[in-house]
């Protein structure tokens, strides 16, 4: 049997959504019977592969790196899931959006530092003007809100997808779990 290819990606978020993926506990074993995790912080892969079936995206799109990566992911993924509030609404990363990025970096790295008072520029991607939800850059097929999304909601979505069905979040078994925050 051909296994499905599942990827996860960590953009501007706290990794809490990935923790919530791990918190689906034994369902993870069922998932791994039917799917290979081909990219993400949980596996060692340098480049986002072609032909991915499902990608779980954690985090807002916040930097040039996020912006390029999410577009590459969209091209190479059949079904893109925005996982958690940062990917769905912008959430905490978007709280910087009312402050100009230059002023923001000054505040954090110059005024907020005792030594090496300089905003980092080498080896880190430039920030976008705004940290935005994934759907403002590319098409998103399914939103799983929550900070983090409840493990039962993630388990439901993955189980349904791997059974070849589009998850119906109005299903009474999970409808109560679908919420911002």
């Amino acid at each position, binding site marked *: 049997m051909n296994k499905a290819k599942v990827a996860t990606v960590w953009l501007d978020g706290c990794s809490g959504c990935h923790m919530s993926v791990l918190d689906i506990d034994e369902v993870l074993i069922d998932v791994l019977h039917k799917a290979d995790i081909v990219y993400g912080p949980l596996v060692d892969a340098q480049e986002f592969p072609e032909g991915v079936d499902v990608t779980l995206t954690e985090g807002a799109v916040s930097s040039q790196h996020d912006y390029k990566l999410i577009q590459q992911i969209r091209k190479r993924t059949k079904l893109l899931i925005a996982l958690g509030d940062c990917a769905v609404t912008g959430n905490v990363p978007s709280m910087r959006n009312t402050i100009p990025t230059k002023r923001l970096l000054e505040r954090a790295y110059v005024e907020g530092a005792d030594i090496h008072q300089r905003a980092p520029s080498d080896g880190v991607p430039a920030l976008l003007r705004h940290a935005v939800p994934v759907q403002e850059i590319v098409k998103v097929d399914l939103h799983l809100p929550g*900070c983090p999304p409840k493990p039962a909601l993630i388990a439901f979505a993955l189980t349904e997808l791997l059974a070849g069905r589009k998850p119906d979040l109005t299903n009474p078994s999970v409808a109560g779990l679908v919420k*911002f925050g």
Partner: protein
Amino acid sequence: MPQKISLRIDGELIHTAAGQSILDAAKAHNKFIPALCHMKGLSSVGACRLCIVEVAGVGRLLPACTTPVQDGMSVTTQSDKLRRYRRIALELLFAERNHVCAVCVSNGFCELQGLAKRLGVTNVRYPYTYPKVPIDLTHPRYTADQNRCILCSRCVRVCAEVEGAHVWEISGRGVGSRLVCELNRSWGESTNCTSCGKCVQSCPTGAIAEKGFAVEEMSKRTDPISRLATLRAAGSDNKPGVIL
């Protein structure tokens, strides 16, 4: 004795008193119509547009909270069209300010968040506007964070109609509208504010909250205020034994 009238709500024949709003009549018959700016005991203003309903023979949608029942009226409270429009109204409220549920004192108790959950909103389809709006921490006990304000004006009305202090107003127009305290001074400088906390309890989101509460801690109670307002309307709030 108010005049009795008959109308149909979602096909059900209802006999009720004239002068009531469609929202009150529907609620009295256990029909759910979503609403955010409505609060029992306060005047209705039709600000949030979530309680829109279809009335047979009327070409546009009407807010249930400000439309009085009429004899022979036929009202629809649930339809695909209404669900679509209510969802749009709700999503626009989210897009208009910076609602970050994860760090909000009212997370888990918020009426805006609760309605999004109930109406099945998984995402906001419109671009967020990220407005830069003021946060007022000058009052010794309370906070006003306009990032979370939906301009429902419940605070404005409860302060004017129940407390009689007229501290809050809405200034500006459209997306430029802001909640202001006494001709735009800071809340701490207010001379009218009695620190009664009715605006705090009436606020459906975390926009007006009490200091000392952390994320997910600020639950609110509107029932005592509604009860007081109802008693006051009946002229019996000064009788002994009335406890808020």
